[in-house]
């Protein structure tokens, strides 16, 4: 089966796909320092995957990524809930890593500071889990919708 999209679209997608994914991952892992976070960065990554699906439609019948996406989405949500449960000795969603000195537990000077990455307690970890979940979930939605629409169009053409 041939792709619907022209060579221009496929070449530009080849070039720009990696940059979109890297930018989304940057937004996710710097969610506790700069504007953005898990939801926004996950949406950026999913938009990169949407571009990929639209440009390379001929790969649809060979690869079936929906099981992988569904599994990774569930894993992201489970990690998020587990991180919330780890602080259950105080309360649900207790930030047990903040200011502890261990992983992501650096104490910062309040006010203006350069923005140290090793801060925030469970907030960066939750950002990553939610970003993972949102990216995989939205990609799965886009993939299923586009595949269904394409199937519908082919049926109407063959009739």
């Amino acid at each position, binding site marked *: 089966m041939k792709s619907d999209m022209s060579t221009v679209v496929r070449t530009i997608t080849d070039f720009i796909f990696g940059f979109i994914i890297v930018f989304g991952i940057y937004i996710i892992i710097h*969610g*506790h*320092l*700069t*504007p953005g*976070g*898990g*939801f926004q960065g996950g949406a950026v990554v999913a938009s990169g995957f949407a571009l990929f699906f639209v440009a390379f439609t001929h790969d649809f*019948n060979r690869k079936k990524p*929906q099981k992988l996406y*569904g599994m990774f*989405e*569930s894993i992201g*949500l489970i990690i*998020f*809930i587990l991180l*919330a449960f780890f602080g259950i000795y105080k309360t*649900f*969603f207790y*930030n047990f890593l*903040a*200011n502890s000195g261990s992983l992501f*537990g*650096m*104490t*910062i000077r*309040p*006010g203006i*500071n350069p*923005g140290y990455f090793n*801060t*925030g*307690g*469970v*907030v960066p970890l*939750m*950002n990553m889990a*939610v970003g993972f*979940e*949102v990216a995989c*979930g*939205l990609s*799965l*939605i886009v993939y*299923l*919708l586009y*595949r*269904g629409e394409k*199937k519908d169009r082919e049926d109407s053409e063959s009739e």
Partner: protein
Amino acid sequence: MKTAYALIFMTIVVIFMFYAITTLHPMGSPLHSEMDDYFIKNAQIEVGTNNVVTSIVFDYRGFDTLGEATVLFIAVISVVSLFRGVKKDEE
């Protein structure tokens, strides 16, 4: 006749909305600012994040984020169940 009724209704709604705009509280001076002041003062000390919005979303109001993630999960589940028939046709 229907257009006239719609126009009258529309005019009333617009008048009420403009009236509501005139009675809005001025932007930037909220009536109750205790919560905002607490977050701005203590979020960096307690959570350690520079981004106060993220510290509110993922720490102070984690339950809200859990609900948000669950809503997205349910949306994905509903889309998957909606498109199950397509997969069966292909095979």
